[in-house]
């Protein structure tokens, strides 16, 4: 945030009048005011890509749905975050995610600590109407400390961003296209053979059980992505 900009905007989110600094996103302002908007790819401390589409909101006067994480507030904006149309799309997007790969909560290390699972519960997802794709995907356990299980990956690219933006190593990236996209380390080498710095940031920011710590098997793997805003703050203070 540019500290010189002190311009204040007022807007309405879900019939609640709120104020914001110019340049803030709808998502930031909503969360400051206790208005919940579901997100998966967004994480405080990382750049936003607007990819998961769960934070889509309606803005009065526009027929288009806009992602709250990258849309800047404007004076007099009227935002709705929980209309029937939005809830329907969120529901379908979550179903698409659950049916895309092999998400089996009962045998997942992230069971009880998974953002996808929590979102499903919050959004009242009782069943998935879509056919499960059941793809055959590999597990990369070549790293001495961590494991990458593609079956649980939702391609939110938080690991890619944290590694490139915060750690500065850029081990992770995406290969392939569309439904065949895959997170890879270095130039599609085993994670254990990559130039990984073993910092573990990617594991902490992963919303599901796709990246996990080998020492914490079973379903006791809480993650602590809250370190990120603090780390950024301390770096800026230096």
């Amino acid at each position, binding site marked *: 945030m540019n500290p010189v900009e002190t311009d204040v905007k007022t807007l309405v989110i879900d019939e609640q009048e709120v104020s914001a600094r110019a340049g803030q996103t709808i998502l930031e302002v909503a969360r400051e005011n206790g208005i919940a908007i579901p997100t998966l790819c967004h994480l405080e401390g990382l750049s936003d890509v607007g990819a998961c589409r769960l934070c889509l909101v309606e803005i009065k006067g526009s027929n288009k749905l806009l992602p709250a994480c990258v849309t800047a507030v404007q004076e007099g904006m009227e935002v709705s975050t929980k209309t029937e149309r939005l809830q329907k799309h969120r529901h379908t997007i979550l179903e698409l995610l659950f049916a895309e790969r092999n998400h089996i909560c009962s045998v997942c290390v992230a069971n009880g600590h998974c953002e996808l699972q929590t979102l499903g519960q919050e959004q009242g997802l009782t069943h998935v109407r879509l*056919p499960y794709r059941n793809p055959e995907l590999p597990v990369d356990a070549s790293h001495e400390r961590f494991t990458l299980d593609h079956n649980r990956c939702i391609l939110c690219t938080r690991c890619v961003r944290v590694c490139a933006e915060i750690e500065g190593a850029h081990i992770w990236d995406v290969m392939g296209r569309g439904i065949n996209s895959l997170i890879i380390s270095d130039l599609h080498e085993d994670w254990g053979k990559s130039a990984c710095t073993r910092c573990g940031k990617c594991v902490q920011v992963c919303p599901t059980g796709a990246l996990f710590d080998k020492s914490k098997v079973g379903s006791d793997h809480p993650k602590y992505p809250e370190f990120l805003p603090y780390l950024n703050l301390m770096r800026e203070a230096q």
Partner: protein
Amino acid sequence: MTTEELEQIAESVRLANSKHDHEINVCMGTGCLSQHSDKLKDALTSAVDAQGKKVLVRRTGCMGLCAAGPLVLVDPEEILYQHVHAADAEKIASSLDREPVAELQCNLREHFDEQVHIVLENSGHIDPEKIDDYIAHDGYNALLKALTEMTPKDVIQQITDSGLRGRGGGGYPTGLKWSTVAKAAGEMKFVICNGDEGDPGAFMDRSVLESDPQRVIEGMVIGGYAVGASKGFIYVRAEYPLAVSRLTTALREARRHGLLGNNICNTPFNFDVEIRLGAGAFVCGEETALIASIEGKRGTPKPRPPYPASSGLFGKPTLINNVETFANIAPIIRKGGKWFASIGSERSKGTKVFALTGKITNSGLVEVPMGISLRQIVEGIGGGVPDGHTFKAVQTGGPSGGCIPAELLDIGVSYDALVKIGSIMGSGGMIVMDDTSCMVNVARFFIEFCMTESCGKCIPCRAGTAQMFTLLTRICTGTGTMDDLALLEDLCSTVKEASLCGLGQTAPNPILSTLKYFHNEYIEHIVNKRCPAGVCNMESIQSEIPSEVTA
């Protein structure tokens, strides 16, 4: 380069041409080349040489009627020959000054008479690898006029007056885009020409780049002058090797003539153009993904705003237009915006190039004024559906467009009219289908295309198109249920409204339009396990089901 020097070049070309009694233009676009028109050209050259005639045999770009290729046009008599092969060279050479070769003559007046050529005005008349040929056909007059007589503001005013809208598919007003980029703050700006044409059945941009590359370059330079940019990029698919090689030649020749580089036409204006090759991703035709690709990153779209006009290539204000849009610029500057606005329909001005393919007699490239009815294009210019079959639908706009049924053929072609009936103008692909096409299968084909070409960034497009493909495959193989159909419609709405970029947002269009106009075909597949067009194979299912089938 000055106006006088341009005129000198043009004069010398005319003088050289006038020494010949005839000009034989041989189409060497990709279509005709695939039937060895290069050998035909060599054969014609040696045939006229052997007969000692003063004839100029010229390589030209696409003449449009690809179905009848290889094509040969003899000037000044304007005799068009079709399906000409090297063996016919002698015949044609000896027929000069005498009666034309009747059995090779192409008499398709109605095909050409209804067309209006602006973008394709030079196609078939100039050698795409000779800048002098282009100059002899008023080439670079517009650039000189813009640089020496007009302010950037005047140029933008002319474009605004012309009513030109983006030819890449979206139809965004070009004048508005140019003035936005011109007003954007920043010392450094870029111009990008989007030549990443990827729609199945579309080859307009390829033909323009192959037939008249200088026209696109001139448009870009004028654009650079208007918005204050000094660097341009042409992003072309690597799958278009001929277009790339002709563009490379064209850029080299333009630089040599001082029409690119520093102090163009002795003015303080500098501009140069670089080619960037696409690596085969359809999504890179989307402007933000294309920009990421030029930057050397993974070609995935970014949420807009910010639009490229304010923050584009390397974060700088960027003017990005399609090949055909740039190809329209020079004629507009030369003849004025008002002249252009006099052609076309009320809200869609000028002409549009369409690639007419599928079940149609005269497949090839056509350029028609906006507002012309689809029926005129399909039945008049296109010559209708061949082999006694009946017309079923025409698909416009590629995988982002929709199928238009026979009862809507009388609507005029314009951006708004096509959107209203559930399709889009798109970049100009037009695929004609007859009674042997199964519309469910067609929808499945396009969704498969969107599935494999989705970049995978956003969930609705990545997983949604894959699910839609699964459901359509079920329906096409006879295992679909009415529940699947309801689910399919539900997915369409989410993918359309929730996807990040235009590719995802328009991906359901082929399904939505076929559901709208050919709903009964879906029902036949699901309820009666029968494909009305006989395309989908359901024999294995039919043998299993009992006689009374309920959905």
